[in-house]
């Protein structure tokens, strides 16, 4: 867009067309105070704080030319009244005055009015110290009020606006920032104004009240102390708070946030601004879900089983014993008799050492980052090859971008992604949402597609056919960067648009329209989540092919975005905590057992030792308990005494994310650093320290092998390009002093992490075109300035222009429910009541009661009413749940919320399980 030049207080400013006056003034370093205006929201001009004088060049009506004065300069026609700066876009030749006596008088008046019904209770107000009303009153306001104090409006206060947010209606200046955030950004129209005049107030009439997963952000952007974080009230003053930069441990978005410490206590969690990741937002789980850190159920001492009981021991004893016994197992039975499971909640540094411990010291290829339940999908390699290319900013994409969401529920799996995807739609992009059931994202979509569960892959194969049948593939890209298109065409023959349309009940023109949008877009982002993973490799390959044949890989703004289960699931794969690939997706000489196979081997007595860190197979599937009990040496490393830990021989207490340094890699492959905010709880230690301690003890015992277990070679999708063999293992002594040492080794050893040294993670930071949160004038919320760096997104394979990709195809399979069986679908839930939600009392309100959703048609057919107790059984086992007849559930499926309380692993035989349904008394 063309640039506009205008004059503000005599300073010439040039800004892009469409810029608001407030922003233009900021460019010139001129302050225009605001309350209701927010850079992320549409301006409304409600508070009148930004009044300025505006003039534009006088235009001669006859000639349509600017009128010039005797000096040849345009005559400026000043508008007769003051104008609000926030809603006025800039125009060429505009003249703005922000410092005249009239403007100052108006500001004083606006503040005097705002304060007429404000209680002025700053000394006891939680916002005191970071309050724009306080700051602007000091800067621009009157020192006295002419308003009769006894006439102030009074309300009962504070009142709960929702389970997490309190409202003080007397302090509210009715700027509507909270209402507009919920409407525009979150898409939850749950806040509104009630009444009028002096009784005008913010209310939430949703049921339950303030039913939004983003409610905490309204507190941040509230320019007064009206909206309050209920937990932070009277918990401390903001000037006593020391914010420690961290990364959210709850989901794979990896929101940047701070732990706000008052001495040793976490008092609140606030966002850190990172426009690449979370902008200035957090979801409520991230904001209020930190209490597990201080749970009194945390493990504080190493435990050892003696005489059937777990008793306390010392680290020295525990580590030496474990090392001895592991060494014994390896000597007597070989490395194959040892297995290791380390989950995606551990940091990259932990995971790297974990796989190194197994591959190098224990000579065991058996490591995995899964629980070993039958519903767990294959590991995701798609993002390694075609992930969102580095440099992609979801917050910038808009017109010309198509987002295809398949089998994902971002609101529940990765909430802040929902805000980002809505943003793309708002900026003119297309958002196509395909799923087997309605999700909240549907409301924001430009098109929704409903397929039947089990036909996900068919849908995408139909899209592939539609692209190829229409000849709209990117021919140049297909020719130069892919091979085997003919084989793919042949394989797709049974999946022509007409055939698939008939088979899965989606109209043929839907395929054509979606294919057109996908192929014709400048940028394509493919998002897939847990329900897509459930459909398995055929779907993922089809999605990869769709990105490939339309040429939407390897360029910023293009690629796939898989939403995996844990915050660092991506890091676990990057670090090679999986049986088939080493760190950096390199091939390994010997493929080990998967988690499922390990549980099986344990049951068969073939596994002599099993080390489980940050995973809980017994909770995921109680049936695996019997198998794990047969393992001679079961070591569990966790924050809590989980069901798995309860049957362990050794239980090692790990530190939480708040007590240690490290890095997590988010769904977009962005490596981000988090910092220790408090001391270790009791004798707990960071995971990496425990692994390093064990490594040191073992290294002294084991004659180290030739270190060729991790033979580096190119990842699978290339097949061609053998990467140079690298010398592995620098630190043979396992003397790691801090995570810095491990990071240095990772940077050296793992090719894709070459650019992810701690120094580089931190190198990109700043305020991103906005002032720090403590800017008293242009207030956009209490999010903190990012001082820890925006992180580094590692490059995908597709960004190497010489890599050629194979268009592979696998035959999709469809689960076949037998007579009368229904398909069990586990729906992800953000508030799952799992271990990381422990102690988070504020969130407990939102954890659903267990139920099974039954479609209306099925309920009628089977004579099921809401409240009936149902037993769902498969070959694996059964669970009993109360039925809820739910119009949102598709016929033929049963929808069970994936809550920690429901042991779904007990009944699932695969990713989609056909189950028998019967009513039971209860």
């Amino acid at each position, binding site marked *: 867009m063309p640039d506009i030049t205008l004059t503000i207080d005599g300073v010439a400013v040039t800004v892009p067309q469409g810029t608001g006056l407030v922003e233009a003034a900021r460019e010139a370093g001129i302050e225009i105070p605001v309350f209701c205006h927010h850079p992320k929201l549409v301006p409304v001009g409600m508070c009148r704080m930004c009044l300025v004088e505006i003039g534009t060049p006088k235009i001669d009506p006859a000639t349509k030319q600017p009128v010039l004065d005797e000096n040849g300069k345009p005559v400026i026609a000043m508008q007769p009244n003051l104008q609000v700066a926030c809603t006025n876009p800039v125009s060429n030749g505009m003249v703005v005055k922000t410092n005249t006596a009239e403007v100052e008088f108006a500001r004083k008046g606006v503040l005097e009015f705002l304060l007429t019904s404000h209680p002025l209770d700053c000394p006891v107000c939680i916002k005191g110290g970071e309050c724009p009303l306080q700051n602007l009153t000091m800067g621009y306001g009157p020192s006295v009020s002419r308003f009769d104090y006894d006439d102030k409006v009074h309300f009962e206060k504070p009142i709960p606006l929702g389970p997490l947010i309190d409202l003080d209606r007397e302090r509210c200046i009715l700027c509507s920032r909270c209402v507009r955030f919920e409407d525009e950004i979150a898409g939850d*129209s749950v806040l*509104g104004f009630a009444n009028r005049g002096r009784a005008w107030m913010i*209310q939430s*009439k*949703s049921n339950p009240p303030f039913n939004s997963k983003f409610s905490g952000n309204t507190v941040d952007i509230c320019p007064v102390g009206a909206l309050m974080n209920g937990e932070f009230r009277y918990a401390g003053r903001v000037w006593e708070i020391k914010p420690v930069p961290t990364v959210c441990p709850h989901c794979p978005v990896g929101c940047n946030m701070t732990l706000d410490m008052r001495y040793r206590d976490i008092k609140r969690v606030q966002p850190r601004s990172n426009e690449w990741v979370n902008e200035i937002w957090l979801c409520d789980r991230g904001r209020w879900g930190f209490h597990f850190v201080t749970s009194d159920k945390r493990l504080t001492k190493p435990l050892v089983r003696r005489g059937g009981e777990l008793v306390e021991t010392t680290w020295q004893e525990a580590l030496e014993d474990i090392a001895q016994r592991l060494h014994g197992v390896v000597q007597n039975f070989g490395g194959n008799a040892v297995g290791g499971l380390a989950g995606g909640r551990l940091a990259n540094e932990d995971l790297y050492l974990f796989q190194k411990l197994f591959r190098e010291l224990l000579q065991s290829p058996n490591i995995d980052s899964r629980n070993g339940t039958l519903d767990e999908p294959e590991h995701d390699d798609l993002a390694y090859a075609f992930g969102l290319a580095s440099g992609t900013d979801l917050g910038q994409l808009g017109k010309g971008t198509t987002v295809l969401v398949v089998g994902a529920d971002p609101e529940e799996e990765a909430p802040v992604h929902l805000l980002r995807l809505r943003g793309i739609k708002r900026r003119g992009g297309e958002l196509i949402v395909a799923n087997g059931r309605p999700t909240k994202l549907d409301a924001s979509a430009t098109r929704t597609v409903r397929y039947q569960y089990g036909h996900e892959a068919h849908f995408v194969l139909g899209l592939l056919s539609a692209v190829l049948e229409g000849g709209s593939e990117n021919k140049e890209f297909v020719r130069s960067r892919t091979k085997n298109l003919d084989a793919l065409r042949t394989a797709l023959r049974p999946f022509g648009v007409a055939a698939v349309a008939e088979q899965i009940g989606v109209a043929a023109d839907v395929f054509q329209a979606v294919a057109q949008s996908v192929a014709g877009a400048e940028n394509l982002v493919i998002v897939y989540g847990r329900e897509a993973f459930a459909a398995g490799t055929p779907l993922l390959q089809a999605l990869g092919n769709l990105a490939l044949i339309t040429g939407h890989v390897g360029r910023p703004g293009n690629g796939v975005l898989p939403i995996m289960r844990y915050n660092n699931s991506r890091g676990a794969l990057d670090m090679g905590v999986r049986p088939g690939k080493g760190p950096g997706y390199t091939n390994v000489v010997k493929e080990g057992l998967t988690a499922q196979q390990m549980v099986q081997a344990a049951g068969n007595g073939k596994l002599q030792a099993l080390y489980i860190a940050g995973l809980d197979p017994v909770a995921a599937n109680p049936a695996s308990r019997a198998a794990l009990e047969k393992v001679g040496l079961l070591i569990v490393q966790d924050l809590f005494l989980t069901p798995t830990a309860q049957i362990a021989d050794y239980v090692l207490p790990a530190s939480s994310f708040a007590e240690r340094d490290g890095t997590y890699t988010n769904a977009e492959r962005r490596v981000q650093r988090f910092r220790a905010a408090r001391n270790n709880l009791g004798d707990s230690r960071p995971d990496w320290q425990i692994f390093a301690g064990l490594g040191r003890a073992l290294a002294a015992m084991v004659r180290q092998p030739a270190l060729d277990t991790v033979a580096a070679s190119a990842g699978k999708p290339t097949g061609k390009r053998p990467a140079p063999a690298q010398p592995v293992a620098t630190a043979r002594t396992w003397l790691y002093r801090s995570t810095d040492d491990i990071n240095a080794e990772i940077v050296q050893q793992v090719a894709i992490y070459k650019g992810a040294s701690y120094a580089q993670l931190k190198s990109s930071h700043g305020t991103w075109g906005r002032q720090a949160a403590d800017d008293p004038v242009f207030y956009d919320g209490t999010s903190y300035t990012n001082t820890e760096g925006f992180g580094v997104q590692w490059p995908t394979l597709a960004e190497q222009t010489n890599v050629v990709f194979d268009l592979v195809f696998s035959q999709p399979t469809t689960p076949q429910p037998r007579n009368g069986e229904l398909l069990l679908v586990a729906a992800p839930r953000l508030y799952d009541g799992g271990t990381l939600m422990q102690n988070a009392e504020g969130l407990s309100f939102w954890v659903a009661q267990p139920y099974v959703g039954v479609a209306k048609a099925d309920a009628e057919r089977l004579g099921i009413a809401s409240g009936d107790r149902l037993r769902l059984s498969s070959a694996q086992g059964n669970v009993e749940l109360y039925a809820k007849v739910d119009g949102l559930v598709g016929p033929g499926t049963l929808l069970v919320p994936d809550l920690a309380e429901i042991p779904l692993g007990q009944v699932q035989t695969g990713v989609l399980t056909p189950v028998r349904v019967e009513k039971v008394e209860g």
Partner: protein
Amino acid sequence: MLSDKYAAEIAGVLARYPIKNSAVLPLCYIAQDEYGHLSIDHIQEVADILEMPYTDVYEVATFYSLLYTEPVGQWVLQVCDDNPCCFTGTEELVADLEDRLGIRAGETTSDKLFTLQRVKCIGACHRAPVMQANLEFLGDVTPDKVPGILEDMVQKAQSGATLSISGRFAEQ
């Protein structure tokens, strides 16, 4: 359900506007006449018909004084107590109505027949004192006219005639 019972009327209202949201006030009137007032459930019903967020309809319902979020009687009597009416005897009128109905302004009779309210100017000063009953204007209401007016209303209510507290039929 409104959408069934008033299907034709609602369709007619919706047809008047290019976007559905614009029909929020007429639909609130229909709901209010049907249910006597606008409770949470009734507002939800309107929101569902218009495919609007519940909150947005609620904002409208609480903003306007002719939409009642609390139960009212079959006849809502609104007496103007702005200046011109006061000069011509509003206070006497209100007192007289209060006496006869046995309630205070702002209350509803126990038989749910009348609600008495004080309102600000309703724009008919030349006929002061004025009151409106279900949005029908009654001008020059001196206390001697009150018994007849009330009697009429009782009869109308008892005759089973369709009354509209929203004034949907005021012009007919």
